[in-house]
């Protein structure tokens, strides 16, 4: 048996040993959602520890209005729409980006610059999705486009920032969240200190990596803090995350973007939780460049993802679950993500 396996087994026993009270621990990162599922973390924990998937997958929480905005670009064959992969299945009013041949999946925003250079007769529109992790990359792409004076490249910014949304969830008095697994990738950019604000909501957090051992250590630390009624924000991913983060990335992000209100699928509009392109870079803002104006697309009636994300309801409480909302035809973010709370519940019910 290797060291990691031994350590995980020891942690499993230790968590069981110290765990006394019921505790709900929320993770707020898509990769943590996947890791918790893939490493079967829940099966290693006693029943009184409840691990919930929060709104941590930026693709899953993209609003219908934002998808509709992207679709107006995709429906115009003279444009090429570049996006990260999993975005193409997010639904809006019976349509999704996967239905259009001129939608290209890219892995890096810089790929979309190359596509723009190679296709000078086409307008290339990059969908700017993600939290503090990807926003600096898109900011770099915009700055590079400005430097190269690329006339046919623009971005629809749908970026969101983590702290405001977490604050909105933690301040909801009905939400049953006792502790947070803090996102490792986002923290690599923002630094540990960025998350100190969660203590104002009487909640502790531990920044975690993505291996099974990382997550088990994180849960152990959170249970220990909770038992001892201590408040802290611990960096347990110090091999990647520093106290103050990547200043260059943060500066680049706020050089290009400014905060704006943002719509979250399943939750609604959260003031100041989004990032819009500053006027200085308006030439690269597709919304302005093409005068895109779509009317608001409301979340489908009956979707209870907002409550499920905050541990106020279970998937089976939702009238759409398993009928109008399935992994092949998802409605809300908890089903859009393949390991979201509803998708996992559907698969293993």
């Amino acid at each position, binding site marked *: 048996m290797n060291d*990691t396996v031994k350590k995980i087994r020891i942690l*499993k026993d230790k968590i069981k040993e110290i765990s006394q009270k019921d505790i709900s621990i929320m993770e707020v990162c898509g990769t943590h959602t*996947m890791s918790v599922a893939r490493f079967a973390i*829940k099966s290693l924990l006693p029943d009184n520890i409840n691990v919930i998937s929060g709104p941590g997958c930026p693709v899953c929480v993209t609003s219908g209005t934002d998808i509709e905005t992207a679709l107006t670009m995709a429906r115009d064959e003279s444009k090429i729409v570049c996006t990260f*992969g999993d975005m193409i*299945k997010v639904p809006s009013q019976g349509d999704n980006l996967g239905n259009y041949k001129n939608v290209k*999946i890219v*892995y890096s925003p810089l790929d979309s610059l190359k596509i723009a250079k190679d296709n000078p007769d086409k307008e290339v529109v990059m969908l700017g999705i993600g939290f503090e992790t990807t926003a600096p990359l898109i900011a770099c792409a915009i700055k590079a486009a400005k430097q190269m004076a690329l006339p046919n490249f623009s971005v629809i910014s749908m970026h969101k920032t983590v702290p405001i949304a977490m604050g909105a969830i933690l301040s909801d008095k009905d939400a049953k969240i006792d502790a947070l697994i803090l996102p490792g990738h986002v923290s690599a950019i923002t630094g540990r200190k960025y998350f100190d604000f969660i203590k104002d909501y009487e909640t502790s957090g531990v920044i975690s990596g993505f291996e099974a051992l990382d997550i088990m250590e994180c849960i152990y630390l959170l249970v220990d803090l909770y038992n001892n009624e201590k408040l802290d924000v611990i960096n347990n991913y110090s091999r990647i995350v520093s106290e103050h983060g990547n200043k260059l990335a943060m500066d680049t992000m706020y050089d290009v973007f400014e905060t704006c209100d943002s719509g979250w699928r399943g939750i609604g509009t959260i003031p100041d939780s989004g990032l819009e392109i500053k006027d200085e870079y308006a030439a690269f803002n597709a919304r302005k460049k093409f005068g895109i104006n779509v009317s608001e697309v409301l979340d489908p009636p009956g979707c209870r993802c907002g409550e499920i994300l905050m541990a106020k309801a279970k998937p089976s409480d939702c009238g759409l679950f398993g009928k109008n909302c399935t992994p092949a035809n998802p409605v809300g973010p908890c089903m859009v993500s393949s390991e979201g709370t509803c998708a996992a519940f559907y698969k293993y019910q």
Partner: protein
Amino acid sequence: MHELINGLIMNNLKNGILERMDDSAIMENMHAGRIAMTTDSYVVNPMFFRGGDIGRLCISGTVNDLATSGAIPYALSLSFILEEGMDIGELERIVKSIASTATEAGVRIVTGDTKVVEKGKGDGLYINTCGIGHIPDGVDISTYNAKENDDVIITGYMGNHEVAMVKARELIDFDIDVESDVAPLNKKIEALLKKNVDIHCIKDPTRGGVASALFEIAEHSKCETTIQEDALPVHPGVRSVCEIVGYDPLYLANEGKYIIICPSGSTKDVLLEFGKDAKVIGKVGKTGEARLLYETAYGGIRRMGMLETTQLPRIC
């Protein structure tokens, strides 16, 4: 055009039956007993990729399907739907690939058809093949036959084909050394059956990968199956791609692998036949409820299901 294509096909694939150009292929009766039949259409894009092409795929896919029942492939049909403007040089490469793969699999193409559709109405080339084979007496292999305590074997690395396709489609731009595994496997099954090795199930984990295929076997045989995380053979290149873009190798498509379920007494022979990358990845548990379980090295257990939709590169 038609003459050119027919000439090309005949030069490469001719045999006593195909050459007659009759409307139906007349063959000797194979053997008494049971026959197996299967068909599949191949619409892969791009048509050429590292490790193979649509030609190798359209023969391997069909003979591999036949051999899952223990059948020995006997004859294949081959039908082309060509898009007008298809490059003749590329077509020739594909026909030659069909010829060499059919030789490797020891099967003849006895009948065929070619249609040409207008430019823009196809994707270069679509191929349909249909195959028949005979099942030797006494052989009973099916996804309904998994029994408690059987070993679950995968005959090599998982996911190479799909990762090679993702690379060929330029969805990822990093350099990886991964080739498609597309290959005919019928000769290996034939060799095992000749040695009277007892096999309960054979399944080719194509679309949906190993996990979806095992879930289907669990449903058909109404059994619980547990696979072990630390036993799964994954090529380092495939593992890297999975880590970076968020794929699960258990759900990636294969075109030259089998899942073989057999009593533990047969395991050694199966592993020997398929070589060093073949591994025992799990066990069939009790019968009753259909469940697929995944056990981690540290004792975590989770349930797995079928692949619901295509895996997509994730940003987070």
